């Protein structure tokens, strides 16, 4: 009799209070409903669909580019946080800190991982968008999520752009000089853009070199430390914060709009 009632370690563990407090619903899922509930009841698992059509996850249909983009985003977040322990966003130290990270800090590959990951994410986001377009997955009811995706693409490019300045080498400085000068040509909001002169009272211009879109971007009339600091904060805090909100909406809508679209 004792043999029959003896439970396995796993079964005993599943009945403990600790297990039940961690995994809502408790117990090892034994049937379809319990399996479904265990997915729905976990904050991490619930991002996944409970069930999906077999043909919708064929690699040749999805390319897995959306998932890869998110995976690379996670890599960039983790490696980026690690880089922040050494990098100082000042003109004096920025460049040498990058050299230090690459050459002296143990596992200097972390910096390369971040850099190549950044390139890869831009590519995977593009490919994801290309796949979604070619499979017609942007069509109703997914048109709203397509728009969210366009914003995510824009945010990805902005993250790439802001990160580009941080090594503070010649390439970076001139790239952002050029980018800043493009901002100067923004209609109405750039001091040299069309319509900027319209925003004036009498002789007083409201859009000047010290108050236009370029100034907001680089924090000064000339490229300097203010630009470096602004880009650093945007790159490490501002843009990731915004992109995570949009990603949450994006993933949520993938699920709510019927999951991954199926091949026609």
């Amino acid at each position, binding site marked *: 009799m004792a043999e029959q009632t003896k439970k396995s370690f796993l079964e005993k563990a599943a009945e403990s209070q600790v297990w039940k407090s961690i995994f809502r619903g408790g117990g090892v899922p034994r049937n379809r409903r319990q399996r479904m509930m265990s997915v729905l009841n976990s904050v991490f698992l619930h991002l996944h669909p409970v069930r999906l059509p077999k043909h919708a996850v064929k690699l040749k249909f999805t390319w897995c580019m959306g998932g890869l983009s998110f995976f690379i985003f996670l890599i960039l977040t983790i490696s980026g946080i690690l880089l922040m322990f050494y990098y100082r966003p000042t003109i004096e130290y920025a460049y040498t800190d990058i050299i230090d990270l690459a050459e002296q800090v143990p596992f200097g590959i972390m910096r390369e991982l971040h850099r190549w990951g950044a390139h890869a994410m831009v590519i995977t986001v593009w490919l994801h968008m290309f796949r979604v377009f070619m499979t017609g997955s942007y069509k109703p009811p997914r048109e709203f999520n397509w728009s969210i995706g366009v914003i995510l693409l824009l945010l990805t490019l902005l993250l790439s752009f802001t990160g580009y300045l941080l090594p503070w080498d010649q390439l970076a400085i001139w790239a952002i000089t*050029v980018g800043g000068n493009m901002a100067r040509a923004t209609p109405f909001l750039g001091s040299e853009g069309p319509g900027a002169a319209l925003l004036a009272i009498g002789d007083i211009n409201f859009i000047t070199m010290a108050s236009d879109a370029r*100034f*907001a971007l680089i*924090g*000064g*009339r000339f490229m300097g430390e*203010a630009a470096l600091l602004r880009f650093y904060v945007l790159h490490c805090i501002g843009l990731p914060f915004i992109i995570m909100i949009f990603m949450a909406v994006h993933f949520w809508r993938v699920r709510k709009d019927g999951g991954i679209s199926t091949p026609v």
Partner: protein
Amino acid sequence: MQEGKKTATKPPVRKAPAALGETAKENEVTRRSFFSWLSLGWVGFVAATGGFFTMMLRFFFPNVLFEPVQTFRAGYPDDYTIGEVDTKWKNKYGVWVIRNDEGIYALSTVCTHLGCTPNWLISSRKFKCPCHGSGFKMTGINFEGPAPRPLERYRIVLADSGEIIIDKTQKYQQEKGQWSDPEAFLRV
């Protein structure tokens, strides 16, 4: 049946209907006052949110800028040779000082295409931008590459001491006819 008896003997006590405009009892929230408070709340909320976003926007435009001084003394006119481009202020202030037969002018080192810094090529006597190949004559006039307009000139005047003062906050553009301004060109 019993219920029916009761109502027959005792006239039902009916509450007076809440008529429109009826004054509420003290501390009582009526439907009408609730909506006026609600709209007031929304106005307050929108105003506070709008105010905060305005503050956030204004926050990005500081009142004091810690940027390098934009006006500097560039020595005496005799320091500059006629017919030559002086590049000694290029790195520090981003200015070329050029003297010709009639006088001296200060040329901005910012390419008018996308803002890179061209180089003065002595042998071919032109400014050449390394980014996209724009070329400018010694006067600052563009003649090759994608640059859409000539280089800008800065305000250049003589101090009482006879020294040249170059003021980068004031710029003069050829295509706007500003190079004829007396302070865009120092006659010596």
